[in-house]
Every structure is written in C-alpha cells, then in structure tokens.
C-alpha cells in the first residue's frame, strides 16, 4: 500500500522536480527564459503569447455576439454598445485574431517547438533571429495595445482605403503594429526554410520528412514571399495618412483599388499561412490515431506545395465587386476553382488513411475528425463565393463570414487545439485530462456549428456583414448564433481546463504516449536541452505498424522486439516440447 501511495505521489510531483535534466529545468530564472536561444522555450513563450491574444480576441467576439442578440429600432436605439463601439469590436476581433493569433499560432508556437525535433536537429538554423521574431511579435502586440488605448480601430481588419486614411481612430499605430508583426512572420518563415534545407541529419531525406514539416515548409515559403508586399503596402498606408503621398487617394490621383490588390496579394496567401500548418497537423493526427501508415504521402506533400503556389494566383477573387475587368474576374475565378483540387486530395487521403484503420478517439483525434467535417463545409461553401454570378449576391454577407470562420476557426483553430492536446505531453511531460478533453471537443464542435451554420442561412437571405443592426426576420438566427457562441466559449474553457489540469495533476507522460513514429517521440518528454545527444536514427515517419503497445512496460515498443521475444518463447515451448518427448 505504501509503495502504491509513493508512486502516486511521484506521479503528481510538480514540474520543477522532474528528475532528469530537460529544457524546462535547464537554467532558471526570468532571464534564462527572456534571453533563451532554445527553440523549445521560444515556442512555449509564443504559445503563452498567442493564447493571451486569442483570449482577448475571443472576448471581443463574445461581446459583439451579445450585442447582436437584439434588433434595434432605428439609429438611436442602443442595446449594449453604440454603433461606433460595435465597429471597433468587430475590427479588433478580426485584427487581433488574424495578426496576433492565427498567423503565428501553429507555425510560430507549435512549429517552433516541434519542427527542429521532428527534423532531428538541435535547433533552428538561426536561434537569435528566432528570439528576435518573438520580440518583434511582442512589440507588434504592444502597438496593438497602444492602439486600443489611443482611440481603437474601426476600419475592419483589412484597413481598406480611403476610409482608413480618413477615420479618426488610431490607424497608424495599428498599421505599424501589423508591419512589425509582418517581419516577425517573415523571419520565422526564413528560419524554417533554412532549417529544413540545411539542418536535416543524415538519413532525413525530403521524402522522409513528416507531413507536418512539409506543411510548415510550404507555409514558410508563403510567409517569405507574400508578407513583404504587405509590409510595403502598410508603409505606404502610413505615409498616406501622415504625409498624404496620395498613392491610394483618388482625390490626389491615387487609386484605392491598388490598395486592395496589394492587400489581397498578401492576405490571400496569408489564408494559406493560416491553414497549411493545420493540414500538416491533421496529417499527423489521422495517421497516429488510425494506427495506419499515411495514405498517399507524396500526394499530401506535393499538395501542400501546390496550395502554396496556387495561393498566390487567386487574390482578386476578394475583389469581384471592387471594379475589375470581366476577363480578369473570370481568370481569377477559374484559378480559384483549381485550388480546391490539392485541398480535396488531402481530404481524400486522410479518409483513405482512416479506412480500415484502428481508430481511437483520443482528444486529438476528436479534434481531427471535427476538422475534416468543418473544413469540408468551409471549403465547399467557398465554391459559390468563387463563382462570379453567385458571389455578386453573397459578397459582404454573413455567408462570407460563416465561410471563412468554418475554414479559419473550424479549420485552423480546431487543428491548433488538436495539436496542442497531441503535443502537450511532449511539451510539458504530463498527460492532459482525457475525458475532459473529449468533452471539450464535442462541445466545441456543437457550439461551433450552432454559431456559424445559421450565418450561412442569414447570409444567403441577404444579411450584410459588419452591421450592428438587422431586420426582425433575422432575429431567431442571430439568437441561435449567439447561443452557439456561448457554447463554443464554454467548450474552449473546458479544453483549457483539461490542459492546465494536466500540468499539475496529469500522469507523467512517457516518451511516446501515442505510438507515433516521428522523431520527436524518440526523445524524452519533456525533451532534453539539446534534443538529441547523438543524431537520431531516421526511418519512415509513418511506420506506425512497427510499434505495438506493451502493457508490461506501459509503452509502445518496436514490433521487431515483440516478434523476436515471441519467437524466443515459441522456441522455448518447442524445446520444452521436444525434451518432453
């Protein structure tokens, strides 16, 4: 009895007392974190930072959904917020979620932690640049905070001219913040590209790279190629507002549509910065929890690159009603359709991976399944928006809002949560609360659909986006949507509890709790400071069938040993048999 109690006690020891030297215990004190060059610590700092931003953006979302509970009678009728305050709410929700959370979410937080270990490297190629990226993010976030206290922002996250050059809100502060965040993103991408090219250990060929790395690599390409265009655009916007260089101002000979072209030349590829890492996560989760080799590895890998390339050629589908020639609208519409091909390739390969797999419904898999369902709806509703005739009707309605929330939130956020549950044991050495995690996945899934599915219907009926008021006929749908948003919020809180509970009370995580074959599961949980003392043995990252669960050791062991053991036992039996004769 005493021994059992002791082991239980050992299991719930606080993190600081982890017996072996790992990245969390390697160096103590504030400065050992603030000045760290360790990609794992930078990843953890990013994780805290982007989650705080997500919380802030989420609060704005809840507030604006609450405002929409009631229709108002005329412009003077106020429910909770004035019309101006409402404009600020949706702008801040969008800007914070896009620039501070979704774009850095998976690549900078989880990618930073996982990429070098998955690759078998000691660190990213440029650790100091990596830390610099993090501080750039922090400075950018500070500018956003400064913007919040000096007048807010009401332009929508897109900063469209000419409104952004004439409104009295703190546009320059916000735009400069986004400019700095852009460089944070560029340097992260640059670091990852160079890491993947030059830091692979012997044996890690391109086609032995896990699909998460292919996805992060494709993302990094987009980050480096698209973000500088946003940077110069934002710089010109600042010059326009402060000096009046007239480049986007029609009164001075400029062209506001040029701003839209520049903006979407970045912001459409940026959609793929947001979603490609999520694809990578889902590839890992599906294969691990189906206990089956990934189906169509090369197709998934190449489709990531194809999406990254095609993503650069579709930007003007955001501008079908902004005034462009019919021929260019047709071309952009056609290319928009082609981008659904590589995306569908991924979905089909995931389904084929699950087919006849031995699926377990651990929390990460619950999120992965939710992803496939929600992302498919999000993707398919993109088609009527990419079609010229239907887009005229649906443009700037709730249909668009629902579409991109299904892709960005139902896609990226759900994958982010799945990835967080999946790698949580690796990051902190503790298992999360499995049952709570599963419950959170179900509630998030239901709440999400309750929030955004009604918005498809409202949008199709003509409810315009960004309006603080609506006609009474939309009332029931808005109420449903708001109740869904609250449910979603509760689900996210439960997910957070399941994870944080794990930090303090969770079981100590083994090196490989899921039986995955990628390299990060070869080092201890949490990983040691140097990741690998000797270069790891690189094999097929999806040779999951080679690993079997051994209940005696409570760990996943290579099948080979198991076979050898059983053969040895068989031999002993046979020997016994022969001697018996």
């Amino acid at each position: 009895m005493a021994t059992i109690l002791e082991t239980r006690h050992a299991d719930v020891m606080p993190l600081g007392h982890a017996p072996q030297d790992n990245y969390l215990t390697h160096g103590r004190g504030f400065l050992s974190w603030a000045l760290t060059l360790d990609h794992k610590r930078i990843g953890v700092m990013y994780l805290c930072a982007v989650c705080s931003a997500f919380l802030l953006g989420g609060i704005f979302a809840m507030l604006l959904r609450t405002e929409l509970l009631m229709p108002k009678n005329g412009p003077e009728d106020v429910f909770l917020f004035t019309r101006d305050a409402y404009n600020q709410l949706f702008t801040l929700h969008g800007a914070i979620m896009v620039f501070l959370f979704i774009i850095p979410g998976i690549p900078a937080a989880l990618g930073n932690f996982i990429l070098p270990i998955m690759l078998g490297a000691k660190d990213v190629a440029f650790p100091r640049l990596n830390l610099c990226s993090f501080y750039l993010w922090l400075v950018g976030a500070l500018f956003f905070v400064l913007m919040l206290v000096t007048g807010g922002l009401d332009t929508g996250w897109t900063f469209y001219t000419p409104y952004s050059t004439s409104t009295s809100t703190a546009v320059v502060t916000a735009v400069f913040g986004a400019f700095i965040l852009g460089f944070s993103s560029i340097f992260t991408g640059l670091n990852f590209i160079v890491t993947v090219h030059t830091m692979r250990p012997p044996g890690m060929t391109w086609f032995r790279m896990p699909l998460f790395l292919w996805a992060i690599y494709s993302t990094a390409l987009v980050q480096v190629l698209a973000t500088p265009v946003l940077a110069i655009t934002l710089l010109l916007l600042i010059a326009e507002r402060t000096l009046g260089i007239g480049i986007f101002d029609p009164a001075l000979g400029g062209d506001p549509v040029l701003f839209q072209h520049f903006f979407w030349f970045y912001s459409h590829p940026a959609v793929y910065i947001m979603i490609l890492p999520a694809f990578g996560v889902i590839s890992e989760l599906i294969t691990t929890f189906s206990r089956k080799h990934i189906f169509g590895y090369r197709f998934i890998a190449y489709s990531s690159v194809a999406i990254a390339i095609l993503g650069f050629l579709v930007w003007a589908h955001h501008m079908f009603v902004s005034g462009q020639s019919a021929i260019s609208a047709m071309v952009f519409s056609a290319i928009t359709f082609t981008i659904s091909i590589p995306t569908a390739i991924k979905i089909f390969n995931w389904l084929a991976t699950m087919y006849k797999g031995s699926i377990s419904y651990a929390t990460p898999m619950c999120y992965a399944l939710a992803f496939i369902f929600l992302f498919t709806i999000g993707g398919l509703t993109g088609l009527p928006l990419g079609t010229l005739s239907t887009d005229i009707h649906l443009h700037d309605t709730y249909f668009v809002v629902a579409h991109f929330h299904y892709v960005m939130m139902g896609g990226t956020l759900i994958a982010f949560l799945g990835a967080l549950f999946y790698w949580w044991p690796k990051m902190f050495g503790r298992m999360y609360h499995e049952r709570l995690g599963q419950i959170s996945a179900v509630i998030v899934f239901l709440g999400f659909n309750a929030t955004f599915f009604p918005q498809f219907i409202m949008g199709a009926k003509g409810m315009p986006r960004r309006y603080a008021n609506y006609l009474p006929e939309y009332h029931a749908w808005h109420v449903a949507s708001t109740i869904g948003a609250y449910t979603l919020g509760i689900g996210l809180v439960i997910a957070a509890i399941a994870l944080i509970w794990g930090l303090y009370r969770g079981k100590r995580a083994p090196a490989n709790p899921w039986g995955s074959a990628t390299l990060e599961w070869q080092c201890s949980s949490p990983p040691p400071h140097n990741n690998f003392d000797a270069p790891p043995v690189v094999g097929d990252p999806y040779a999951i069938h080679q690993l079997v669960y051994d209940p005696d050791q409570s760990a996943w062991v290579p099948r080979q040993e198991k076979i050898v053991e059983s053969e040895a036992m068989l031999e002993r039996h046979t020997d016994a048999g022969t001697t018996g004769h």
Partner: protein
Amino acid sequence: MSATADPSTATADPHGTAGHGHGHDDHHEPFLAHHFESWQQQFDAGKLGVWAFLVQEVLFFSGLFCAYAVYRMLHPEVFEYADQFLSVPHGAFNTVVLLFSSLTMAWGVRCAMLGQRNGLIGCLAVTLFCAALFLGVKAYEYSEKYHAQLIWAGADPLTVSPSGMQAGAGHLLELDPEKRAVGEQLEERLASTLHYLEFGMGVVGLLTLAAAVGIYYAKPERIGLAVVFGAISLSAIAIVIGAMASMGIHHMMHASGHEATADSEAEAAHMAEAEDEPPVHTATPGTAEIAGSTHGASVKAELSRPQRLGTFFGIYYAMTGVHALHILGGMVVLTWLLARAVKGHFTPNYFGPVDYVGLYWHLVDLVWIYLFPLLYLIG
C-alpha cells in the same frame, strides 16, 4: 594551421585542430555555433538565409515598382512632365558611386576569403565612404526639390483635387505656394540649407574622429567602439563631400552657357502655371512663352503642367526614400563588419558575414540600377 604554430593548441590538444570534438569547440572555433556540425553547414545556412532575405527584399520593393507601373500607365503626362525636374548628372554620379562601391564590396569579400585583413578593412572603408557619398548627393537633391516645392501630392499646394479643394490639409508637411523659390532665390536657399548640412556634418565628423582617436589611445581594448566612431566620422565627412560635389555638378551644368537650365525654366513654367491656370488639365500655350525658345531641354517645359504633379513625386520620394533607408541599413552593417575586421575575426574559415553583407549591398545597388532609369531617364 599546424598544431605547433599555436602553442596553446599544442598544449591543450596534442591531436591538433582536426575534428569537431566536444569540449574544445569553444577554444578552437569561437564563431562556430553549437548547433552546427561544421563550418560548411554554418556557411551554407547563412548563405541560404541571406538569399531568402534578399528574395523578401525584392518583393518588398516590388510593391513600389508595381505602384510606379500603375501610375505611369494612369498618368503618363505627369511622368513625362515631372522627369525634367530630376537632374540626370546627379543621378548618374550616384550610379557610378554605387557601382564602384559594389566593386569594392566584392573585392572586400575576396580579401576576407584570402585572410587579407588590411585589404578587407580598406575595401569596407571605401564601400562605407561611397554609401555616405550617395546619401550626400541625395540630401542635395531632396533639399533642392523641397525649396522648389516639388513635393508629394498631399503636401503640394498645386496638386488640386477634382472637387477644386486644395490638397494637403491635415498632413504633416504643408507648403505655401507663396514661398516657392525659383531661379536665383532657389539657388540662395539651396546653398544656405546645404551650408547648414555641411557645417553640422562637419562638426559631427570632427567630434567622432576625436572620440575614435581618444578611445584608440586611452582604451586600446575598446578598439571596436573606436572603429564605430571612426566609421561615423568617415560617413559624416563623405556626406559633406557628396553635398559639395552636388553643388559643383550643379554649377558646372549651369556654367555651360545658355543650354540646359532646364530646371529653372521648368520651374518658371511650374510657377507661372500656379499663378495663371485654373486647376483644369488642358494644354496651356502660355508656358511656351515663359520657357522661351531656347534649346533642347526646354522643349519639355512647353508641355502644360499636369494637374497631378504630386503623384510622380509621391512615388519618387517613396521609392528613393525606402532605397535610402536600405543604404542606411547597409552602412550600419558595414560598420559592424569593419569593427569585426579590425579585431581580426575573419579568417578563410569564417568569412560568412562579409559575404552575406556583400550580397545585400549588391541588391541595394541593383535596386538603384532600376530606379535611375525609371525615374531620371524617362523624358
């Protein structure tokens, strides 16, 4: 390097410098980061990184080039007319300066590869000097444009919106058309601004030179700081020389008789337009009289002043301004390299930073190679 050449090596590690064994890395290879296996891997990573950075830079500038293309297509008459206000000799001088600095930069990389410390220091210093010279000429050009009120649309009182309202209200810089300078007046004001610039830069140059010499003798171990002050001094003096050279070029152009003087004539046209013409874009024969019937360059002055001259200058300042910021950034990293070169950090094994800065410098040069014809040579 043989083991005996370095006594400390011989005692610490009798097996010489071969291998990358742990424990001695810090001693033998102070600039090889722990997460790289070899010099080659570190160099390759840095090189790929700087190329990726240059790709990013190209896309950063591409936004400006794109805006240039769109506005030149939308307002060809503005670009045609505005071009006459840019001085080709000054632009050409700057082009030569930058091309020469690219040569010295490439030469410096070669010196670093061969381990020629003095050659490297000399080449980096000349490159830095050229960079500052370029900025000196640019300072002259900006001052001249400012006094002639050739400025971006929002601050240009003569760029008028279709509604008839004057542009510029509410912006940081707002000019008064009454204060526009032409001819003699422009010369005077320009000379006075440049005198202030030269005096200020001269003081900075002398003070930092004194600081550099002082540190060098008082605290020889802080040689890096002395080099930084020295580099600032060199840059300040180069800016003074650049401004003086620009003034010289200006006088040479105007001394060569009755030809040229396109600037003042064009400005006169510009001025006349401001006084006489309603803000409508029509041909104005009046300008031809003012421009007179002198030779060559004045023909362009017969074109009417387009309504939106500020559109060209908005793009001109955006492009050359962002380029000048890149020159400044280049000067900062050149100073850093200079300090490290003086300290003897670079060896045939470790010259990556020189190579990377060299690549960056060539890109900054290349951007100017495009800017010069697109802005100065389109008339």
